[in-house]
């Protein structure tokens, strides 16, 4: 077996057997999905309870038609009972609240004189819905006062929905744009987290070899470059494995959870939209809208994104972890790494910031394009752009630059690594690192 393969194998096994790896791999998706399902379950339970709201209408303007029962809210007219009696009853009974509409001379005054009493503070969505109902009624009253025909007003209502196409003829929507932003942002952020977690893991592994003093024994059998590369590849494989397990686990858990709790995945995603907006969307496009969303999710370049994620993860990881390895080699213990960490962390974090700031507004704007070429930020920024469709030549430029840079960086880091692993005692400076670069062999 080749030496590199042996090293990769050892590093991989050492990493995968580690308790923290096991915990992170198996527990976090369960926690994540479990918590999500639990919250959703509670929300659903919460919504299922019908809210009883009573109203006392002393203005005489409102009727039962203005307060139509919905699935979750039932209205009752308690005008006959009077304000004081109603309040008492609501306070003692199992009611959500009481809406008190006083008699006023003008609609303007009335608009700000209506009160709502409840035992606990009412939910925002309930209040919004009540206010909308009152506003609609009062506006209609006012239009009536002006002598405007309500029928005509209603008939004149027009809703426009501009359909968006790209030149390959695919239809898209604002909703889909949001989805793309979400998918891209998650991919970019995940990549940054992976690079950081596994990069520091490479660094720790180098420091461990140094402090346990086994490194000189190893490099008497293999080239330092092989050792470094083996470490990087071993850790990257562990990272990919973890990513794969996460994917499978999340798929299984969501499937199981949705069948247990009866959660419809599609519903889960769309129910996040405010009810009114969803209704408007449904009205505008009928059921087509829902179909469009599902269509678009399916139509997202999932395979392409997956392949690119793997490529940019590996490329970005090679680039950064070689720097992490060089740092690990330069120092004697982890506390000494601080001074060298900033230059590594800064571009990673910059990538995420730039991604969030520019890609969301304009996925193909000059800033977004520039940072998706720069190899230190390209893995993150490009991944964020990919869901919006990136032309092949841009991808080619970005990927080529990343490849060239990571080869150069691995070569550079290996030079520091080679010298650093055998240096003990002195906390190195940047000047030392520069000197080491010039040592021969």
């Amino acid at each position, binding site marked *: *077996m080749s*030496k590199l393969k*042996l*090293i990769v194998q*050892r590093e991989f096994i*050492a990493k995968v057997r580690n308790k923290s790896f096991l915990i992170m791999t198996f527990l976090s998706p369960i926690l994540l999905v479990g918590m999500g399902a639990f919250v959703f379950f509670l929300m659903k339970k919460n919504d299922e309870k019908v809210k009883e709201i009573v109203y006392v209408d002393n203005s005489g303007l409102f009727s039962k038609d203005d307060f139509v029962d919905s699935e979750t809210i039932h209205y009752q007219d308690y005008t006959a009972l009077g304000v004081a009696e109603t309040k008492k009853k609501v306070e003692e009974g199992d009611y959500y609240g009481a809406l008190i509409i006083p008699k006023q001379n003008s609609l303007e005054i009335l608009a700000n004189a209506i009160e709502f009493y409840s035992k606990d503070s009412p939910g925002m969505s309930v209040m919004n819905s009540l206010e909308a109902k009152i506003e609609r009624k009062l506006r209609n009253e006012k239009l009536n006062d002006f002598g405007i025909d309500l029928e005509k007003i209603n008939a004149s209502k027009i809703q426009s929905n501009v359909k968006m196409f790209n030149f390959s003829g695919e239809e898209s929507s604002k909703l889909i744009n949001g989805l793309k932003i979400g998918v891209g942002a998650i991919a970019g952020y995940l990549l940054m987290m992976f690079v950081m977690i596994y990069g520091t893991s490479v660094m720790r592994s180098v420091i*461990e*070899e140094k402090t*346990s*003093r*086994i490194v*000189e*024994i*190893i*490099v*008497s*059998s*293999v*080239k*330092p470059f092989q050792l470094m590369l083996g470490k990087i590849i071993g850790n990257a494989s562990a990272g990919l494995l973890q990513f794969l397990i996460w994917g499978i686990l999340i798929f299984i858990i969501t499937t199981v959870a949705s069948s247990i709790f009866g959660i419809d995945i599609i519903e889960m995603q769309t129910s996040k939209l405010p009810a009114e907006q969803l209704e408007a969307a449904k009205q505008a496009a009928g059921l087509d809208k829902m179909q469009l969303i599902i269509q678009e999710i399916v139509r997202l370049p999932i395979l392409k994104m997956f392949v690119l994620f793997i490529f940019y993860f590996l490329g970005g990881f090679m680039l950064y972890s070689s720097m992490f390895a060089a740092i690990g080699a330069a120092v004697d213990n982890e506390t000494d790494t601080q001074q060298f960490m900033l230059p590594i962390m800064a571009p990673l974090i910059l990538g995420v910031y730039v991604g969030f700031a520019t890609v969301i507004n304009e996925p193909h704007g000059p800033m977004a394009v520039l940072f998706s070429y720069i190899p230190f930020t390209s893995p993150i920024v490009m991944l964020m752009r990919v869901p919006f469709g990136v032309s092949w030549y841009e991808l080619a430029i970005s990927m080529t630059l990343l490849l060239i840079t990571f080869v150069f960086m691995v070569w550079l880091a290996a030079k520091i690594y*080679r010298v650093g692993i*055998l240096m*003990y005692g002195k906390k190195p400076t940047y000047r030392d690192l520069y*000197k080491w670069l*010039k*040592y*021969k*062999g």
Partner: protein
Amino acid sequence: MNNLLEINNIVKNYGAFKALNDVSIHIPEGSVYGLLGPNGAGKTSLIRIINQITMPDSGSIILDGEALSPKHTADIGYLPEERGLYKSMKVGEQALYLAQLKGLSKSEAKKRLKYWFDKFDISAWWGKKIEELSKGMAQKVQFIVTVLHEPKLLIFDEPFSGFDPINAQLIAQEILQLREKGATIIFSTHRMESVEEMCDEIALIDKSNKILDGKLNDIKRQFRTHTFQVGLNTLNPKEVEASLKQHFDVLPADFKLLGNELTLNVKLGKNNSANELLSFLTSRGEVQHFVELMPNANDIFIQAVNKNK
């Protein structure tokens, strides 16, 4: 005798610092070779070059008739001064890993490890982690992984500094056995007394230069001071000492004998021979003790280094 290792004109610089200056050393096959020198003289730099951990700026190294190349790592066993093992890795797995890095197949490595673990009576440790072992136990494992692949050349850098006396003795014996089997051994140390009885040849490195090399006996002869330890049974020691002083250089004794003899260190003059001294002594009394004081490696080391200042 053939040379197993020929080090020719090695120069190594670290930036402006010259670690090795034109060092040439030839190590005969089957010998125990002492690479001696003070701390920081360049011993470890040279050893790292032999192990191909670093490359020389110039010069060449020939191992067993071939220019040193990466395939030779399997022919060399190296126990560095700074040594250790993966703390959280199991003993057996670790030994297998290191053996495979030296080019052994897994099955062969297992077979040999079983032999050594049985020999050192440590088979029970196979599944333990290094961090669970005592330092002395880990040292045995360390030694085994150094010699397991049966290299032609074994290099021990300060071999006895990290080992406790019992392990040190065990390992000294094992090393001599390995030589019997044909291995060539390099000891690198600044503590002469620990290797003097084992070395056939030595080289002395000081301040990046080789200042001395050759067979230990030749070097000792070269550094001998022609001083004899003398023990004489005589009736009037004062008179004998006084007359000795007329012919020889007499120093007070730095040794003890069992009886009440006159004890002295006598240094021969330029024109005297050992026999002259001996016949002088026998004419004055009964010679109990007559030994030439040979310089030990430590004396040679100190003298040579001081001369190099």
